């Protein structure tokens, strides 16, 4: 089940423009009070993150003294260097990246091929096949995880990165989403190309794929985010630290063998959150647009 929201999603984060004539007029005190209320909501939402960065950049002994720190004082990077001593952070970040890139790249390739078949080629059983695949969207991951675990165990793939990206290659939602997108591209275009002697692969990769930029980038952003943040999969499949991805590594740092001090865990969380924050600030519109247009996640 999906919902396409046909609005200019790029505008969702942009403050609404005030009508010209009104801008000159004084705003009512009520409206200003309301703005303050909205600001308070924003501050409350941001507070845990501000505290996270402030406390993690404070000297270990001072990080959690009361009142809570809103700025690092005294400033220190010691918690951060302790993270690097206590967990293979770089290795785990690389693992997360490898899994996410292969999952996203692979699943989009598989989806683009399948969407082409569903949108442009006719053969018996095609539409029934699509309905069967779509009904899989209703199946929760917990139902398939046990058999998939048994399968990985039999293939000797438990505790490998392969066990994380291989099941992610099939993305039924992406297939459906791309098929809808391809259907909206006029067929006259491929017929013209066909007359010029183009084959299916040329039509797909030289014409349809370049024309599907917005759909592909929305799916890529959502897919990358889902993979990067996945905790359930690694928890089931991975046991050795050098194979872990960041989410599992974080939790293991906190709970494994005695557990690291709170300030160090805080620094590790900050190291995971910071790149996401930077990416968000840089590509805010793309993030919001992806969520609004393809807004569906397991």
């Amino acid at each position, binding site marked *: 089940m999906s919902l396409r929201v046909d609005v200019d999603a790029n505008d969702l984060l942009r403050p*609404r423009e005030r009508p010209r004539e009104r801008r000159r007029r004084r705003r009512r005190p009520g409206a200003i009070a309301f703005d303050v209320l909205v600001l308070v909501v924003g501050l409350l939402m941001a507070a845990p993150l501000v505290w996270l960065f402030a406390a993690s950049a404070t000297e270990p002994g001072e990080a959690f003294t009361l009142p809570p720190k809103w700025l690092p004082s005294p400033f220190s990077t010691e918690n951060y260097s302790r993270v690097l001593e206590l967990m293979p952070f770089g290795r785990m970040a690389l693992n997360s990246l490898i899994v996410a890139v292969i999952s996203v790249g692979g699943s989009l390739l598989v989806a683009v091929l399948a969407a082409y078949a569903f*949108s442009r080629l006719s053969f018996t059983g095609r539409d029934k096949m699509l309905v069967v695949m779509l009904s899989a969207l209703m199946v929760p991951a917990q139902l398939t995880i046990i058999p998939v675990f048994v*399968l990985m165990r039999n293939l000797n793939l438990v505790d490998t990165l392969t066990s994380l990206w291989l099941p992610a290659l099939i993305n039924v939602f992406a297939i459906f989403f791309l098929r809808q997108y391809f259907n909206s591209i006029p067929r006259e275009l491929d017929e013209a190309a066909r007359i010029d002697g183009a084959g299916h692969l040329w039509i797909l990769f030289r014409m349809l794929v370049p024309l599907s930029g917005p759909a592909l980038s929305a799916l890529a952003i959502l897919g990358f985010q889902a993979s990067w943040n996945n905790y359930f999969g690694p928890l089931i499949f991975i046991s050795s630290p050098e194979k872990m991805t960041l989410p599992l590594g974080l939790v293991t740092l906190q709970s494994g063998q005695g557990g690291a001090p709170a300030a160090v865990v805080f620094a590790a969380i900050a190291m995971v*959150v910071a790149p996401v924050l930077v990416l968000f600030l840089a590509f805010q519109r793309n993030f919001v647009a992806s969520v609004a247009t393809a807004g569906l996640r*397991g």
Partner: protein
Amino acid sequence: MTAGVATPVALGTDSPPRRRARRREALAGWAFLSPALVLFLVFIAGPLAFAIFLSVHSWDLLTPREYVGLENFRRLFSDPLLPKALLNTFLFSLASVVTHVFGGLLLALAVNRPMNRFVSYFTRSAVFFPYLLSWAAVALLWKYVLDPTFGLVAYYLDKIGIDAPNWFVDPAWSLPAIIGIDFWYTIGFTFVIMLAGLQTVPSELVEAARTDGANRWQVFWHVTVPMMSPVLFFAVIITFIGAFQIFDPIQIITGGGPDDATMTIVMFLYQTGFQAFQIGYASAIAILVFVVIMAVTGLQFLVARKWVYER
């Protein structure tokens, strides 16, 4: 979910070259579909069938499987943990749906009007951003935010004269704490969906209602809400399906405790399958999860027929 229309076959023109062309196209179709089809069979359809097969067996992954018929289901329905887990899961889902839909709509309405540009931008970003993080980071962060000795919440509640509970030790407060954390984490999604929904409400309709003398409240109830009902319905369904499978923060923060106060159905499944390795029994739980989600979603669709406005 509309299936495409099959190409009509022209009668009488089924000459051999044409038939050959059609066979070539069918072959290409299956070839393009094959990677997806193989993966679908191996990682979705096969496992689904295998899960049903496992649910009527007793198996610990080591000793041979043993057929036990419906014994796993019989045991499940007399397991004292099941009603507890189901109740917690339903409570969580209900609270999640209500807080997300109302909160998301309220937040979207609050920023979807002429206002200070900085405030608007800052609040929109602050509400949306947590949704991009992982449960691992969010759950660990909030474990400290809610810490009774050095956490933010305890400190500021104390300042205004409220004695903060010891969230994850007190069974009465553990589930509400998880509900609150989940709200902070995922409200950004509902918020964006609602904001998008608000933009689909035609402004001519709002203006027409205003000229006819409707006040803001009447416009909201009689124009905005009906026009947005498909979006509201979508938010309810998506939030429910997600909430019913809540697992990560439970596993990370409470492990289902204290005193099973945060034991949810998927946590129950995880402990049975991946800690006790009762594979057959866990598969029976998984099938129950599937059936409940299907049933509740179906029910929501039935209810929705009455009040969702279709354009």
